[in-house]
């Protein structure tokens, strides 16, 4: 019987020592909403589980020089209730809030969603678009990594042995900025995204886009940051021509597979549709117009 042990360290160092020192497979547990499913189905047989929820800094969200620092073990339901954070980063919080159900929201975390490294993760395209930064701790201390460098492929990350994410930082927002996340699912809840799209933009007074990041989920082995799609927005207002170019750029970036959730052709087309719809919500929000809550 493979034995499985559990530890709930109360300091970063203790956690790192446990993870780095583990002989067999060691996994971090914050929400556990992916980890426990994979353990139950036998896909993952860890020998050590390190619960990060008791590590100072892993829980809660605080402001820091204009941006936000979010503890990696903070459940979605806690962030969803943070009106200030939600007002500033509606896209990121809506993306996290779309994961699973209310029950899942009671546990799931941004870092868990990111490190599970599913190409269809909901919060990850929104974090890519937001330009989030991950505070990674490990045997050689603390380092800050742009979120898009974390996923390496389906189920794989670029974190080294003994490393885990302690916090996720959302940068300060220049005025007239807005972000949004939409996904397509066959039902209205409880599904994994067939396609996901995160858009974050900053506009000038005339409503012309001066900065943009566009990200797509479930259309490639990892979540994609689509430069061409961003370039289609920069320097433009959201007129019909820009929308058409955005749609085309999004479709061109898609390298999806046929699987139980969607076909190549369908995912590609819907990627274009979602890019347009997400961008228009982001533009509205950047101009202070409240835009429909994504369900």
């Amino acid at each position: 019987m493979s034995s499985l042990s559990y530890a709930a360290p109360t300091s970063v160092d203790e956690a790192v020592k446990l993870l780095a020192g583990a002989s067999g497979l060691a996994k971090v547990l914050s929400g556990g909403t992916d980890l426990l499913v994979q353990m139950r189905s036998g896909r993952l047989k860890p020998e050590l589980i390190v619960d990060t929820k008791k590590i100072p800094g892993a829980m809660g969200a605080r402001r820091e020089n204009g941006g936000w620092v979010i503890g990696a073990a903070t459940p979605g339901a806690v962030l969803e209730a943070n009106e200030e954070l939600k007002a500033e980063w509606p896209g990121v919080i809506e993306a996290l809030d779309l994961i699973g159900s209310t029950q899942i929201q009671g546990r799931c975390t941004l870092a868990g969603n990111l490190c599970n490294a599913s190409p269809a993760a909901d919060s990850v395209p929104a974090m890519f678009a937001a330009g989030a930064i991950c505070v990674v701790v490990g045997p050689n201390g603390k380092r800050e990594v742009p979120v898009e460098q974390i996923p390496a492929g389906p189920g794989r990350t670029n974190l080294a042995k003994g490393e885990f994410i302690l916090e996720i930082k959302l940068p300060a927002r220049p005025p007239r900025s807005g972000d949004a996340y939409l996904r397509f699912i066959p039902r209205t809840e409880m599904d994994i995204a067939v396609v996901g799209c995160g858009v974050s933009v900053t506009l000038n007074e005339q409503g012309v886009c001066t900065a943009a990041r566009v990200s797509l989920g479930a259309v490639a082995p990892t979540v994609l940051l689509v430069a061409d799609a961003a370039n289609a927005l920069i320097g433009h207002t959201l007129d019909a021509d820009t929308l058409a170019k955005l749609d085309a750029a999004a479709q061109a970036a898609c390298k999806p597979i046929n699987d139980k959730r969607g076909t190549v052709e369908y995912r590609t087309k819907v990627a274009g549709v979602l890019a347009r719809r997400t961008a228009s919500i982001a533009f509205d929000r950047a101009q202070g117009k409240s835009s429909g809550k994504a369900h």
Partner: protein
Amino acid sequence: MNYIDSGLKVVGTRPIRPDGVDKVTGRAVFAADTRVAGMLWGKILRSPHAHARIVKIDTSKAEALPGVKSVCTAADFPDIPSEEAFVGEGPMNFRDLSLNIMARGKALYEGHAVAAVAATTPAIAGEALGLIDVQYEVLPFVIDVEDAMKDGAPILHDDMFTQGADPKPTKPSNIAKVVKFKKGDANAGFKDAEVIVEGRYTTKPVHQGYIEPHACLASYNADGQVNIHASSQGHFMIRAYTAKLLGIDMASIRVNPAEIGGGFGGKTLIYLEPVAVVLSRKAGKPVKIQMTREEVFRGSGPTSGAAIEVKIGAKKDGTIVAAQQVLKFQAGAFPGSPIGPGCMCGFALYDIPNVDVLGYDVVSNRPKVAAYRAPGAPITSFAVESLLDELADKLGIDPLALREKNAAKNDTKTHYGPTHQNIGFEAVLAATRSHPHWKTPVKPGQGRGLACGFWFNIGGESTATVHVNEDGSVTVATGSPDIGGSRASMGMMVAEVLGVDISRVRTTVADTASIGFTHLTGGSRVTFATGMAATQAAEKVRDDLKKRAAQIWEIPVDAVEWKDGKAYPAGSNAGAFEPLDLEAIALKAARTGGPINAEVSVNAQGAGAGFGAHICDVSVDKETGHVTIERYTAVQDVGKAIHPSYVEGQIQGGAAQGIGWALNEEYIYNDKGQLENPGFLDYRCPVASDVPMIEAVLVEVPNPRHPFGVRGVGEVPIVPPMAAIANAIRDAAGVRMPDLPMSPPRLRAALDQAG
């Protein structure tokens, strides 16, 4: 005695069900909730291959694992000759049932049970499964029904020859049976038709989706007595099938009915009980087996996937003169798809002079098909009701008018033989036409669809007892598992007959040793058949109460009258004595002859057929193909609603299952014939935010063959939804979707094609 239209006091009201508090407080005991001392945990090893010969099974390493107490394979089960006996649900072939519960020589589908272990903890049992070495010779497989019919398709059963084929076949085939139904002359009818419409429709296998996985706890005692605690739609069925498969006397098997967490037909047969009994016998300890959700999807029967061609000919005024159907139903690993009802139900709603229906029952490498709510009817009606929508469109007639013009009435002869009696289809259509939903114009951007449905509803054997307790309260017991509130309706019928308040009547479900045989809960039969037994038992008790009063008052029994729960002296003795209620009579029970109770068994005949019509408004997101159900109304003839809330609940639940079947439910296989979505994440049942309120409209055309006018209600509501939604999509987006499910990728592709 007949109570139709006789000023009812209890029947028709909405009391709280007797088992309700336990269910909202978590105290109700379902199959997996029981533990006994010394209990072992059983787990089943299932074939990873869709089709494979089992060359050798080596269980030695598993048996050696500390904590493993017993292991079993097909060798531990009697090899039953191909004997077909009808016990319980449908013509169940006991050889097939035994082979389905434990594969012998050949694994016929991915998930097919090949061995089982019992150990002291679930973890040890799980590990032991990994130590069982099964040598397979993987064979080519076939899943799709039409592929399975082709020459050269991999043959599942070398000894199976098509039954009912002309001339008698010489080669084994995957086609188990051919069924034909004829009325009049279809060819002549089509020549007479002024308009002909045709269509090919396909449906995918879908699962009943009950939230409670199958579970049981069995113990085989030293003296050969067997105790089973399990949830099912029929504990008498469990006893009969387990006795048959293991060669044990039914008297030696006692099955205690746990609360059942949903069945919808999927728990009208057994998967685990014989395995648990064998493991218990070999280990000398009770064994509990509990399927995981993945096992439920890989190892238990869905309803058939199907391919249907249908043709309808009509006059310009909408009168249908000819109808033809060819149905191919997937039966899974063993024969037994619902091809019979599938052939019968499609045109049963209409008065058509010339009908020709041909049906095929076809095996393929998928789990053995099990019943699913009006088995076969939703599939055939999806095709017929979709094509009728095309016909109405072609003729420029309103779809409801087309149904009204051709609706079956009393004395309409069906194409499968019987003549409709006491049916309420016209009343349903009238109620539909006058309903606000039908009368309000469709909102801009939305589409509206109409479809109708039929189901026979069955009667059959039931037993009920009524006991008057010493304090005058009443205990009712029946042999019918209560899935949707039938304990409430049983108690209400008894309370009505005895004239007492429902709060003084408690109903329970008795185990197989405590009540007479009762056929399983299915076919929408319980309120009809078991209700009939309970009503007759209450009448016997009422007569006994009058006899006791007569004795107390020393007057002839026919001089006693029963009214509003009391005995009254009547005729010349009127007013001579104070009336006696149950409590007063029960007090004297010992002196007047002993306990007051009655047990009645019936084989209920005259089950009234049920008809329904559903109206559905949808909106379609044309860029993603996503369908939103905006409004849903289900009109149905329910005969007499004993407890209206639970009748409405059956209609709402059946409609929601139909919505899931229409939009997103399907099995997805990989290229090795293995299921890729064996879980509630990717097998997409509707969630609360997917559906609006579902308005259930109860039309009451009493069934005279039941004391309260009851007809079955549980199965009709799942028949209309798929076509109602398909017709609404055509109205909203202009595309006809002939293949289920009408999921977003399929709808978007159809919209792109339509340009």
